[in-house]
């Protein structure tokens, strides 16, 4: 009942979710840190811009992204000038779309977690020979752990379920840009409810297990910190 296209879609989905989450964290962590510590007048502006993609329907966002990614568009033009080929209908394009759309879910929890860290704890680390970078990895990130986990799960889950943008800029090409969410959607649209149920159940169980494990681990950590 599950066809090879479905398996290919699963594979594309996992790759997309992993790569996007990784990129989201790589870009979101420094951005959130800057936002949490900055006193710049531009901070609220940038916070707003990050949250803005959220308010557009994904398909519409996808539509505008499609315009931007096209060879005459803002991003696509730049990409081609850099020697790239097309961006729309490629895996790379998908990643760009997912990252843009999921960014607020990653940046905001991280920013809150970073803001909550007492400046003096970082000063203590500095007096103990930790350079700012060292301090970031040995103090800031561990202290921001709950925020980091929220950011990762929201980013990951949202990329898994993301659909409107991906459908629009991905072009649903099997093995390349067809992700699981689209495959399920196709099954629903073409009245193949049985397959849709099966894939959905699979996705749900898989996600359930991952999320459950993450939350379990996080829980024990919180308890240890609580003290009395």
């Amino acid at each position, binding site marked *: 009942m599950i066809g090879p296209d479905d398996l290919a879609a699963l594979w594309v989905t996992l790759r997309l979710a992993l790569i996007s989450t990784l990129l989201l964290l790589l870009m979101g962590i420094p951005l959130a840190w800057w936002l949490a510590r900055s006193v710049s007048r531009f901070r609220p502006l940038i916070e707003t811009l990050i949250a803005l993609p959220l308010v557009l329907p994904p398909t519409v966002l996808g539509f505008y992204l499609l315009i931007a990614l096209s060879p005459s568009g803002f991003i696509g033009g730049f990409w081609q000038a850099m020697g790239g080929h097309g961006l729309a209908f490629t895996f790379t394009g998908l990643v760009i779309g997912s990252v843009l759309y999921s960014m607020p879910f990653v940046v905001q929890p991280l920013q809150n977690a970073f803001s909550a860290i007492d400046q*003096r704890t970082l000063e203590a680390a500095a007096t103990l020979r930790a350079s700012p970078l060292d301090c970031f990895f040995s103090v800031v990130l561990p202290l921001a752990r709950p925020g980091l986990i929220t950011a990762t799960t929201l980013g990951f889950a949202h990329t898994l379920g993301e659909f409107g943008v991906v459908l629009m800029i991905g072009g649903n090409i099997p093995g390349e840009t067809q992700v699981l969410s689209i495959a399920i959607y196709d099954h629903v649209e073409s009245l193949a409810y049985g397959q849709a149920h099966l894939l959905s159940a699979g996705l749900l169980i898989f996600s359930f297990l991952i999320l459950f494990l993450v939350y379990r681990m996080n829980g024990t950590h919180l308890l240890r*910190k609580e003290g009395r």
Partner: protein
Amino acid sequence: MNDALSFRFRMPLGNFTLNTTGEIPISGVTALFGRSGCGKTSLLRCFAGLEQAGDAYLSLAGECWHDSEQGFYLPPHKRAIGYVFQEGMLFPHLRVRDNLLFGYKRTPDNQRSGSLNQVVKLLDIAPLLERFPAQLSGGEKQRVAIGRALLNHPRLLLMDEPMAALDRGHKREILPYLERLHGEANIPIIYVSHDLDEVARIADHLLLIEHGEVMAAGPLSEMLARVDLPIARNEEAGALFDTQILQHDENFHLTRLGFAGGELTVGWIDLPVGERVRIRIHAKDVSLALDLPGPTSILNILPVTVTEMAAHGRGRMIVKLDLGGIPLLARITQKSQANLDLKPGMQIYAQIKSVALSL
């Protein structure tokens, strides 16, 4: 000066402005003393490089750490300092052991001196090593914070009321260690404390701060012997003596000390004969008599000359005495002064309770 910590800071902090200039000798312990809110913590933060705003100059033994005119600023993590924060500031996500080792791990091998075990023993925190800071009592946190700073193998140790939450028992164990630390390893210590008694025990140098400014600074003995400073009014005012151990009396558990002005008998000091020790005599522990008294429990009765007298509020006065060239302070009531008709130049006897000598 090459063997000093020279500084000049002019920094605004809200309504408050820190405006200090001074020099601190790098050999020994310097105490920062002043009322709550006078700027002690702020100054310590400047030494650590935690405040950057405003006009600043700081150099340690000729090595520049901060010079806002030249645009030079050495960040805290490159200064090799130990900082005991007034409020602990342990890392909440690390166990006590990892808190202690935080700086240790980041110290180059050849700069390491003390070991974890040594510090753990000194601070009596062995049972706490596997706990998180949230599971410690107030005093336990403070001890871990001290240990963390010591294990950073600092070139300069900055301590902001490190003993405030500690009982006398623990203080009595830690203070001598700090004394040895600056003595042996030659690590200058800057020590904020409200407790003049504690200060007098370990400090060599005193910086009096008032409203963000250095009001007076100098060697502790001079500062304590000055009758014009507010500390003279303090319960803990007194004089310092540098002495040498002459003899031990094992029977009575006493030690005899010699100094330029004579000899003193004090409680047993666990050091070999010939060692130099510094003792302190509280002004309030010195009483005066015109004649040599009869049999009494007071062991030390020394002939002195009155040199100076200053009355200060509430019927009390401070009498400065000369003990063979060394100043000694006595606090008496104005009534006693009238009774005895004390005047500068008079030859009298100072009675010092030996047990009141503090090491």
